[in-house]
């Protein structure tokens, strides 16, 4: 219920961010309007990373207490994180085309984004091939924890490898402000969607529990008694 209340301010914030990106942020000299992609790209990249940490942390908490509620957080974060990672690659690709006239290059941050996306995909594939909720949660948690330990090493490796990605573009103060607004508002959207998705998963779990407790015969028996005589 509370998520409905949050919908409005989050929507307003995201709308404000998009407007700011389109109208308020000054046009960049070399790239022109295409540079505005970076506001979305950075937000998505940040969320993909945060999402992965959430999956890992929720997985660890599941392993500790074997409470499936933690696994719902992990799954929700993984789904949203995968989306963010895909969007990071897509927006990054568009940006690369605009900046360097190529759809893909093997440079540090793009490589790291790709690895993150592949890790998410692997995680979701493993989850998808397991039916038992506890087994799924357990093996997913192991994979997620491995991934979380891996991410800093990936970042280090790719950073030391030669690359063309701009490290910190010297940004105009207005641009920086718009960037922060974008990141903040999309983070809000992410959190909202995460909460909604997690609640969905929890309700699915509860429904499954309920179905299990009522034997099939009894359910049908109850239905029959409801029919008009």
């Amino acid at each position, binding site marked *: 219920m509370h998520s409905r209340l949050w919908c409005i301010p989050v929507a307003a914030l995201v709308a404000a961010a998009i407007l700011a990106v389109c109208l308020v942020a000054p046009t960049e000299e070399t790239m022109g309007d295409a540079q505005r992609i970076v506001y979305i790209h950075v937000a998505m990249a940040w969320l993909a990373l945060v999402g992965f940490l959430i999956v890992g942390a929720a997985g660890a908490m599941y392993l500790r207490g074997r409470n499936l509620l933690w696994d719902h957080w992990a799954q929700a974060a993984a789904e949203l994180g995968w989306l963010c990672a895909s969007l990071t690659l897509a927006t990054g690709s568009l940006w690369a085309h605009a900046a360097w006239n190529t759809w893909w290059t093997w440079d540090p941050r793009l490589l790291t984004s790709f690895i993150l996306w592949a890790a998410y995909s692997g995680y979701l594939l493993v989850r998808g091939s397991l039916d038992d909720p506890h087994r799924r949660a357990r093996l997913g948690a192991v994979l997620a924890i491995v991934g979380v330990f891996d991410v800093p090493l990936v970042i280090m490796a790719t950073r030391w*490898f030669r690359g063309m990605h701009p490290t910190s573009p010297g940004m105009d103060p207005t641009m920086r402000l718009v960037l922060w607004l974008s990141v903040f508002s999309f983070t809000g959207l992410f959190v909202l969607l995460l909460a909604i998705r997690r609640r969905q998963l929890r309700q699915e779990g509860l429904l499954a529990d309920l179905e299990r407790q009522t034997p099939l015969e009894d359910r049908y028996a109850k239905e029959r008694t409801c029919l008009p005589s």
Partner: protein
Amino acid sequence: MDYGARGAVGRHDKERYVTAKLWWMMHKDLASEWRARRVWPAMLLLGIVVALMFAVQMGLSPEQKQETVGSLLWLAIFFAGMLAMDRSFVAEREEGCWEGLLSYPVSPTAVYFAKLAVNAIALAAIQCVLIPLFVALSDVPLLERPWAMLAVAVLGNVGIAAIGTLLSGLAAGIRHGANLSVLLVLPLVIPVVLGAAEATRLGMEETLDAAWWRWCQLLGAFAVVFTTAGAVLFDFVVED
């Protein structure tokens, strides 16, 4: 039937002789493989085929070859190694041997280390075949500094074996999991493949500079982190 006195085994509280058990588990795996000759030939063949394919592509100048050979070598090592790691787990699951192994008084961590050691040996075997092969095919001075190559080979070996053993064990329990394991491991093992490739390349330069040492440290960190992670997480992987 006489099956010994009640006190045939002392009722100790601590797990004893873990090192001995590790040794015997490794011995069991290596002896089985030596007799079956199922996994290693396929693994070596894959490595050689990949190496030859790369060699065919390399109509490059010597400098360019020196740039690329490290990556190609380590990719070949990785793919061949994953084949071995996968198949060793799958082979153990037939005949119910895996469950039998877990029902012994030995902790899953010890099983992990035994598997890790065997996989590292398999990777070492691949390296012993592929490194000379690459030297012969592409004529690059890979072994110019043998000790540097050895250091990189060992660190890369342990890193790949650590994460490969854990994730192959994880995938072995999933239906059609064998297809998944390479997919799961490849993105996560990039730091090792990249690092080892770079270190190999830098090892062929005129002088060994700080960059080489930094890559070795990364490889070492990876090996340590994932051996530890594997030792802890393998407990959770084998629960059913």
